């Protein structure tokens, strides 16, 4: 019963979770962390990816640093994040931003470098100035890669959410799983896992549908 609760127990736990109102505050807290972290990390990743992809000087300054930091799993930062940020919301966002940033940065960097040289030459022959070259040719040429990076980052933002909410939170889906585990409420743990999986799945589907529209010419 405790290790493998039957579906009825899980369902009852989930119903109670929803009825108490805690589910929605947990959901909101987690969604806030994931979306805010995703937007900040994604924006930074695209910005720096364009810079390092386009300008060799900036790339030789930053890329080595990013490549050293990139493989460190965000969960390994939990102790230092607690030291730096305490139990504040900023620390949790930091972890999600960290996870999202490197994925988006790398795919943007590669995307910018893989823009068809022929398109650049054609644009040069038509008198395209530097700024328009970046906006209308390079950025759009890299867009399919950027979108793939962002989609990968959607799942990653949920992985890092786990690390973030284990680093001492007061609400959130993963926080609820943690509390339920300490109280041996295995039904609630299972319900929490299902909720987390469902959230991540819906987010991925939504982003996939959005991606079709972002790359409009395909």
């Amino acid at each position, binding site marked *: 019963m405790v290790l493998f609760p039957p579906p009825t127990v899980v369902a009852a736990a989930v119903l109670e979770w929803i009825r108490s109102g805690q589910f929605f505050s947990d959901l909101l807290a987690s969604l806030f962390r994931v979306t805010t972290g995703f937007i900040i990390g994604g924006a930074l990743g695209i910005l720096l990816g364009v810079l390092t992809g386009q300008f060799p000087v900036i790339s030789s300054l930053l890329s080595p640093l990013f490549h050293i930091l990139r493989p460190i799993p965000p969960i390994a930062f939990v102790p230092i994040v607690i030291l730096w940020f305490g139990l504040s919301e900023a620390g949790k966002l930091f972890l999600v931003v960290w996870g999202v940033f490197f994925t988006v940065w790398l795919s943007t960097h590669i995307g910018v470098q893989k823009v068809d040289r022929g398109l650049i030459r054609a644009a040069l022959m038509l008198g395209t100035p530097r700024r328009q070259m970046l906006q209308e040719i390079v950025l759009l040429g890299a867009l399919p890669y950027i979108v793939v990076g962002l989609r990968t980052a959607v799942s990653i933002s949920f992985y890092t959410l786990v690390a973030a909410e284990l680093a001492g939170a007061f609400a959130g889906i993963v926080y609820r799983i943690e509390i339920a585990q300490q109280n041996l409420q295995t039904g609630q743990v299972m319900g929490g896992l299902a909720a987390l999986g469902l959230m991540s799945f819906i987010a991925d589907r939504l982003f996939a549908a959005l991606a079709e529209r972002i790359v409009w*010419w395909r």
Partner: protein
Amino acid sequence: MKLALASSPASVESARKQPAIQVSNLSIVFDTKRGQMIAVDRVSFDVAPGEFVCIAGPSGCGKSTVLNTIAGLEVPFEGEILVEGAPVYSPRPDVGMVFQQPHLFPWKSVRSNIAHGPRMLGKSKTEAYAIADDLIAMVGLKRFADAYPNTLSGGMQQRVAIARALANQPRVLLMDEPFGALDAQTRAVMQDNLLALRDRIKATIVFVTHDIDEAIVLADRVLIMSAGPGRILREVAVKLPRPRSSSVMVEPAYLSLKKDCLDVIRAEGLRAFNQSDAD
């Protein structure tokens, strides 16, 4: 007023004399793993304003490199290149280029691909679109103005690329084997299209091809190049009447011109073969 009167006959005179393109002693050397490779060896030629010149030669003879250099896309080089009297260092909007691949911007519709150049030169969107619509009509793609490039056939894409290159009203149009990737039937149609188009635009055209038939059908003058290193072997004036179409290929005058060209190419091929044997 006096100044204008005094200077205008002279400037008309110099404009008449000045070639549209002057290439003098152009040499291009590439660094390769096996050391330096001379791609183009002291090539010189002039192109008169409004003239249609074809550069023909085998692949690897440096003909595309010569064209890219005139476009300002290939640096560094030795020698001098003047376009409309001014030296070339970088791409300039009065020189248009059509590449072997259409290189259309996939995220822009046909209309906005063609309008790109005028917009970059500071024209308003309305003006640029008006220019684009005229050119779309000229290349016969009215039905496809709002289509994206990936929905067009190879021939249609290349027509868009030609229209796009013409949108800035270039004085000089450079074409790098633009029909090389098309099937034989489409290519013949495109050649006829280009001949008809050429009568309506005033641009000087330099057209690179490895197809000697294509060169003779299109050009006023054919420059035959040889490979290793790239040099100009022979200049052949094509005095076939205009307006011309690809049906000129069965005329006796055409056939004798073609024989002249093939003789030059065959002699060079033999020489190159014997030389490589001696190495």
